[in-house]
């Protein structure tokens, strides 16, 4: 991105001054280097979001922002229903509530090394992944609606996990306001056999080691020590969320003019929050959030069962579960007034600071764990939410590294088998049914996650707590 398009406010804050129909400024949080690497489309998309009705404060881009659909991936925007604000299917995206959860194991690296190969085989056997995979659970219509209304709470009640897990999930494991009746038959059909499946693309299940602790006090609360083994699960609402995104993108695009909404880009498909279509989308989108929470909960159960057979001493406790692609109703201060806003996070992580009322008791004094996924060959990070993040980005932070190379280019540059062998030589065991999929996800196809996390830390969006590196990676 051309720096001349921006006003530099600090080392890590850049503004797009309001112009041409923008109702608020655009604000990018990133280092100069990251901004230069961003596609010009990010500038265009941040600008377009700033033109939507009822937007408050600013249209934000996180340090990992890249070209998305309507909203940039890494985009955050909040809307006020009382000012004609909108809800946007494009602002949430296709993989609704795609997210990451992190489990402690109680194991140390020395415990896992002798059984690492067996762990890799057992996890890849236990958790269905990739194109054509089928979950071990088939939902009939009644069970489907119960799952969409209940989320991870439904999963726990169905025998997948235990009640303490729910305290460590956003919304306590169940997104209120879900309306299964607003979810199309097509969406439900796509999900019927996909519960407890990982998916493909950038989704993964990893066994990781804590290699560096940056903040000992917070890491102690998160129960993370250098040398500890943890498990990370990255996936979303699977076919159901994808279909809801598809369904409402079209409905909102066709209806926008009837609501008097001038869409600068069709992918910004929106409807007034208080309109029937806006309410229908919110009900369906919340059902998809519950689907994602239930899916990650079932996968957690499958992982626990796998570990029980290999390492009975392991105790897999959920540290936290975060979602990336959501629209949530939250209370924020805007110009001295407390407002109820609809906060869209597209490829961005909620990052609540200490003292926030939505935090579980364990994190009330220090803030929310912010889980940042990396690649199978680099690193992931645990950060913690900050108080200043609330005023800077509605309590939001980055979500990952973001691609630096297209899938097409990655397949031309790497062969999956070579990537797997190279990582094995570094002690990272990759299991995937698709060598081409591994090539598309090669570590070199992604930006430097450390640079992204450092920028989020410097901007005060969240603070670094620990760095994690992979030992085993299961991909679709």
């Amino acid at each position, binding site marked *: 991105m051309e720096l001349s398009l921006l006003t530099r406010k600090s080392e890590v804050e850049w503004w797009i001054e309001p112009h041409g129909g923008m109702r608020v400024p655009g604000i990018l949080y990133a280092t100069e280097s990251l901004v230069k690497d961003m*596609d010009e*489309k990010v500038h265009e998309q941040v600008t377009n979001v700033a033109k939507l009705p009822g937007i408050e404060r600013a249209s934000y881009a996180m340090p990992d922002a*890249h*070209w*998305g*659909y309507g909203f940039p*991936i890494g985009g955050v925007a909040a809307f006020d229903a009382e000012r004609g604000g909108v809800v946007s299917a494009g602002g949430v*995206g*296709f*993989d609704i509530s795609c997210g990451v959860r992190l489990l402690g194991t109680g194991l140390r690296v020395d415990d896992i090394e002798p059984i690492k190969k067996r762990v890799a085989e057992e996890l890849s056997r236990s958790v269905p992944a*990739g*194109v*054509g995979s*089928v979950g071990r659970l088939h939902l009939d219509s009644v069970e489907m609606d119960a799952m969409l209304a209940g989320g991870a709470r439904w999963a726990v009640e169905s025998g997948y996990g235990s009640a303490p897990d729910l305290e460590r999930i956003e919304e306590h494991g169940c997104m209120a306001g879900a309306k299964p009746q607003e979810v199309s038959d*097509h969406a439900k*059909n*796509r999900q*019927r056999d996909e519960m407890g499946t990982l*998916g*493909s*693309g950038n989704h993964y299940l990893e066994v990781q080691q804590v290699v560096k602790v940056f903040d000992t006090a917070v890491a102690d609360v998160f129960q993370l020590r250098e040398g500890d083994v943890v498990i990370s699960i990255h996936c979303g609402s699977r*076919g159901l969320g*994808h*279909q809801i*995104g*598809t369904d409402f*993108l*079209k409905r909102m*695009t*066709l209806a926008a003019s009837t609501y008097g909404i001038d869409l600068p*880009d*069709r*992918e910004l498909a929106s409807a007034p929050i208080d309109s029937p279509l806006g309410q229908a989308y919110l009900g369906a989108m919340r059902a998809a959030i519950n689907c994602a929470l239930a899916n990650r909960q079932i996968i957690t159960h499958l992982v626990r069962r796998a570990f029980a057979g290999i390492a009975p001493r392991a105790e897999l406790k959920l540290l936290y579960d975060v979602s990336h692609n959501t629209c949530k109703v939250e209370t924020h201060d805007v110009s001295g007034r407390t407002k109820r806003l609809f906060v869209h996070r597209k490829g961005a992580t909620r990052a609540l600071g200490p003292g926030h009322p939505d935090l579980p008791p364990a994190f009330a004094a220090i803030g929310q764990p912010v889980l940042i996924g990396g690649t199978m060959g680099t690193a992931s990070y645990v950060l913690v939410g900050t108080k200043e993040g609330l005023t800077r980005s509605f309590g939001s932070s980055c979500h990952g590294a*973001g*691609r630096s190379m*297209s*899938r*097409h*280019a990655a*397949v031309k540059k790497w062969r999956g088998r070579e990537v797997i062998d190279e990582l094995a030589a570094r002690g990272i065991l990759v299991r995937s*049914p*698709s*060598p*081409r*999929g591994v090539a*598309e996800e090669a570590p070199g196809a992604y930006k430097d996650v450390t640079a992204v996390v450092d920028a989020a830390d410097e901007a005060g969006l969240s603070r670094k707590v620990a760095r994690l590196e992979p030992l085993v990676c299961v991909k*679709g």
Partner: protein
Amino acid sequence: MWKGTLTHVPVGIRNIWEHFAHGADIGVRGIGATKEAAFEQSALALTGVVTDPTMVRPNVAISIACESPTDDLLLVDWLNALVYEMATRRMLFSAFTVSITGTQLRATAWGEPVDRTRHEPAVEVKGATYTALRVTHEPDGRWLAQCVVDV
């Protein structure tokens, strides 16, 4: 393989498909002598995101119908209908016939169930998007149908 409904087909235009780059995802493009042929080629490009279409045997036929007010939205609907059939039937498709009348599309797609060993499927397609969406009749007579798909 196509059976377009037009009676006049421009001479010398090859029906082809290709991918184009998009930061996180991938673009699918069909080019053909007719709009229908371009739609058929875009479907092959969609399969090409997942696997090599020449590895997919056209053993089983399914019917697809969709309707949209404009050509470009019809393309998105067509590709999303295929995404739905791929996901729910766990199939891949390699041959298509498309006919378009006004705002309505009718098609047959031939394929087979996913064989993870033979197809080595790389990635699921989540949905067709409106990004880089175009259905155009080019000055040289070719029809072009393209968009980015989210994977």
